[in-house]
């Protein structure tokens, strides 16, 4: 094997590596420091609005995994459907967001939160009140531009570097 160029390429490569020794670190210490995730983040859990839902089951029909189960009953006195159970098996959910996209009444939201590991498998199946929006389970702006505007701006690594250059 011949080294015709006497290691010039390696020296050039080393120069690139050495340059990076002087670079500003871009590491985020995760649990303490957090970057803002995308406004349209498709987080781990569905958020369901009891008021807006009519029980039309479009979401259940669209779900490619068949993870949504809806039980409705007819209320003859008020002449409308009532949703008895809205159950999502989040273990089957692939976070594709098609249900949110399909919902004609804007009653479904993707979750903005993450870190949703559970201790028991049965806890993955969530129904009714567990699916409502709460401070610990904020809704994401996926297919809801009005919510996306209120969420914090996503941290972009491209912009982070530009900012650091300006500071220097």
């Amino acid at each position, binding site marked *: *094997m011949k*080294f015709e*160029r006497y*290691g*010039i*390429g*390696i020296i*050039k*490569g080393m*120069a*690139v*590596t050495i340059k990076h020794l002087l670079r500003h670190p871009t590491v985020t210490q995760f649990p303490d420091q957090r970057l803002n*995730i*995308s*406004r*349209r*983040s*498709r987080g781990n859990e569905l958020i369901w609005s009891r008021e807006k839902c009519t029980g039309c089951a*479009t979401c259940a*029909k*669209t*779900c*490619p995994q068949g993870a949504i189960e809806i039980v409705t009953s007819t209320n003859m006195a008020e002449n409308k459907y009532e949703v008895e159970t809205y159950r999502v098996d989040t273990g089957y959910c*692939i*976070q*594709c*967001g*098609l249900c949110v*996209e*399909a919902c004609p009444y804007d009653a479904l939201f*993707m979750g903005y939160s993450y870190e949703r590991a559970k201790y028991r498998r049965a806890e993955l199946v969530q129904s009714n009140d567990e699916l409502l929006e709460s401070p610990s389970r904020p809704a*994401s702006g*996926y*297919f809801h531009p009005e919510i*996306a505007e209120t969420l914090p*701006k*996503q941290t*972009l*690594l*491209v*912009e982070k*570097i*530009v900012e650091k250059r300006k500071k220097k």
Partner: protein
Amino acid sequence: MTTTRELTLKTEPFVLNIGPVHPSTHGVYRMRCTLDGEVVVDIEPVFGYLHRGIEKLAEERTYTGFIPLTDRLDYISPMSNNLGYCMAVEKLAGIKVPERAEYIRVIMAELQRLANHCIAVGSMLNDAGAYFTPFMYTFRERERIVDLFDMVCGQRLTYNYMRIGGVSQDIPGEFLPALHKLVDRLTIFIEEYENLLKLNEILLARAKGVGILEKDTAINCGISGPVARASGIKWDIRRNDPYSIYDRFEFDIPTCENGDCYDRYRVRIEEMRQSLRILQQAMKQVPKGPVKADVPHLIRPPAGEAYAHIEAPKGELGYYIVSDNSIAPYRCHIRPTSLINLAALRQMVKGWKVADLIIIFGSIDITMGEVDR
């Protein structure tokens, strides 16, 4: 080589099993190698460990419901998979995609090509023994591209962004400024790769002249993509059978002559440059308007069949769909890039040593999700 072999001890071939769980096989791929000493005499590929029956699953999902599953074929570049499938259904149903959606699709597909080649270059050099240094550099760039994908579709790996007749949502207002910055940065980063690797003596020694794929063999095996272009075949579907709006952009098709591992690496780097050229043109021209044609959620294309192919980062990716006028495809066949590119591996590795086998395998750039489906 033969003379030294004759002088040394007489050896007899033995079978060595590499994989299925091996860091250099990029997934669950198994090679039964017949070795003579350290020289590869023959290999027998065994795959199917990741078979999920995605083609069959398409038959029981709606046309839209299959899009999330296409993400899981070639999980390194899901945007291209989305695009190929959506184009096939659009061809079947005769849907015209709005102008703005076409531009967004091209931007996404080209960003995806950049992200894919980042991984391809990084993992090939990882296989060559550079360990994680090139991977660290290339993943840095991929991270920025993935950030933008995250912005438009809310997911970092399985994007599920394209829809039949357009894209799911319009790009947010901050997307194009960020893309401008990214394209500027990427030009610098690619120069950095070049300084780091182009003339690196170790890479030259390991990759130059190794695993040569002859032009005729490549054509006979049906090889496409960067692997074919490295062997000197000037074949790019974006140019030879223009789809979407690729005929409006100016770009070159980089080719090399030798068809060795080094050329495959070179072609990928050049392709990244060309992708940046397309991006620069596309992001200036994005028009205003709707991003999705008026397509019902449960689309029923007329009975018939359609085949659409695109130039995915790894090569030609085709979707063949047969419809029987119901809400689900009657049959969906996928022409996977990785599986067909893998067909030439046997010809490429014969006569090389085990260490070369790994870098040759890495230079083809395959994803097992696509090989097994």
